């Protein structure tokens, strides 16, 4: 039943670390890990160290003279900036509603794909395709051929229901972006939940049927608890990716109208690309990272539980 064993200990004799291994052996084991470890530390951690440094500097890269120390002024600007708080809030709203929406649809689609029906493989292929579409392309398809007020397919399909040339991107900008996020990430949730459904031991389900349990009761009492780690995993990984959503915002609404769809990534992009404000972006970045670390600490704890973390015995 080793389904979720990503962090399963390498439990075989040869793989358990030897007690009192020689110094040479320890280095022999460490050596293959070092290039990747050093690479990731340098490329992913160094920029954050530099970010902390610049967060105390006033630095507009279009103004000659370079950076100079300004103490905490970038931070007080960040904390008093309603635009930053707004974008933070919108990031949370967008991520949460997209993850929840995609997960609900994902469970439904997974239950559907778990049934045997004619052409199921093909249907599965079609359903995963939205996840593969380049996010920038997905944003464009939705912004124009799908949601355009005058020519869009969505308005055409909704016309029988009394929808008349709605300009979705200006009247429902946040909803439009979230719908695209859900459309792209539902396949991801579907695949993970489907893997969970298919790993259900069939004899348990058979036993439930013999005991006279109805389909709904079986689903509630057996399937949902079994799916729980899969759902948690999907929510966790989906959040990691979706919190960085940028393409849909940039290409569908450009953060607008006004700041209606400006999330954190778009806010920082504007600060760097339009305001040239490296110091301000850095301070906002540090605040973001601190908030992320708080959330990630909780998430990592969940991750360890989800993966049924086993201590290496040795």
């Amino acid at each position, binding site marked *: 039943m080793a389904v979720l064993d990503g962090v399963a200990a390498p439990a075989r004799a040869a793989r358990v670390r030897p007690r009192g291994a020689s110094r040479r052996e320890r280095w022999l084991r460490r050596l293959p890990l070092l290039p*990747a470890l050093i690479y990731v530390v340098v490329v992913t951690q160094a920029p954050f160290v530099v970010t902390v440094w610049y967060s105390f500097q006033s630095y507009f890269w279009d103004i000659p003279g370079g950076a100079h120390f300004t103490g905490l002024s970038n931070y007080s600007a960040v904390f008093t900036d309603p635009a930053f708080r707004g974008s933070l809030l919108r990031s949370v709203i967008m991520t949460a509603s997209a993850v929840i929406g995609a997960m609900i649809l994902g469970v439904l689609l997974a239950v559907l794909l778990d049934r045997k029906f004619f052409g199921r493989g093909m249907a599965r292929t079609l359903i995963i395709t939205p996840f593969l579409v380049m996010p920038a392309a997905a944003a464009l398809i939705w912004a124009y051929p799908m949601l355009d007020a005058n020519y869009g397919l969505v308005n055409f399909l909704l016309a029988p229901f009394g929808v008349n040339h709605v300009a979705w991107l200006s009247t429902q900008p946040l909803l439009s972006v979230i719908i695209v996020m859900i459309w792209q990430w539902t396949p991801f949730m579907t695949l993970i939940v489907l*893997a969970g459904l298919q790993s259900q031991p069939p004899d348990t389900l058979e036993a439930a049927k013999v005991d006279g349990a109805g389909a709904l009761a079986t689903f509630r009492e057996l399937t949902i608890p079994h799916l729980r780690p899969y759902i948690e995993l999907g929510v966790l990984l989906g959040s990691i990716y979706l919190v960085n959503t940028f393409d849909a915002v940039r290409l569908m609404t450009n953060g607008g109208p006004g700041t209606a769809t400006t999330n954190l990534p778009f806010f920082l992009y504007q600060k760097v690309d339009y305001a040239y404000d490296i110091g301000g972006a850095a301070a906002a970045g540090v605040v973001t990272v601190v908030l*992320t670390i708080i959330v990630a600490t909780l998430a990592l704890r969940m991750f360890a539980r989800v993966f049924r973390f086993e201590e290496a015995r040795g």
Partner: protein
Amino acid sequence: MTSLSLRAASRATTSRAGTRRIRQWPGRVGWTVLGWVVAIAFFLPVLWMVITAFKPESAAETWPPKFAFSPTLSEFSSAFSNIGPFLTHSALATVGSTILVLLLGIPAAYALSVYPVRRWQDGLFFFISTKMLPIVAAIGPLYVIALHTHLLDSIWLLIILYTAMNLPLAIWMIRSFMLEVPNELLEAARLDGAGRIREMGSVILPIVLPGVVSTALICVIFAWNELFLAINLTTTNAATVPMFLVGGISTEGLFIAHLSAAATIASVPVIVVGWIAQRSLVRGLAMGAIK
């Protein structure tokens, strides 16, 4: 008497099974219809993109939308005439970073599974924790670093960053494949006196090769589709395909067919790769947590 009742009983069960099969039929048809309706609904935007891409511009902006038209390749050819350099940059950044990911990731996965280092769990969780730090937070300083190292607007910068972006995922995934190498094979190789390098080359790699390939395909998907880093750190010399979608399409006048053709060209490579990697997609996306 006994045999008669037995036969009757068996006849009863057969006929009950028969009615059940008959009663299941409409259910089966119902699921098929439902399954296909949902699948097509999900696929519809992609289908509409491809259909629109084959329209002449004048047929793309109509109300009601046109479903019958004479297809043309003119929007494809006009999109292709501009997208060339972007495709080259994307291909270089994608292939380059994927190769680097494998060169760094395979040994690292080995050191976290076959002969694990001490505190290998900490290593694993360090790698995954880097995925949780939003790279967007460091974008300003990244720009300055790239400026000072003269890497701004270069393919090398994208290769370096995409490698860091995909490496944690690749290590987790390849590691999960290496854990599946049967212990007996490793022991047999050791008894034959194979050193670690030969053991890696002749025992482990051949077994995990399909897993490595699907890992590579998933890295290709993420690198090909990446926009945020590209848009902030490149302008012309390294601008990738998503950048073409941002800046290369004029939204003046009629443009929907042109845009659809460009979006189709940009998406098709990864859609094909994803369809090929379908079976292992879920494992890769779950970082090897799900088989």
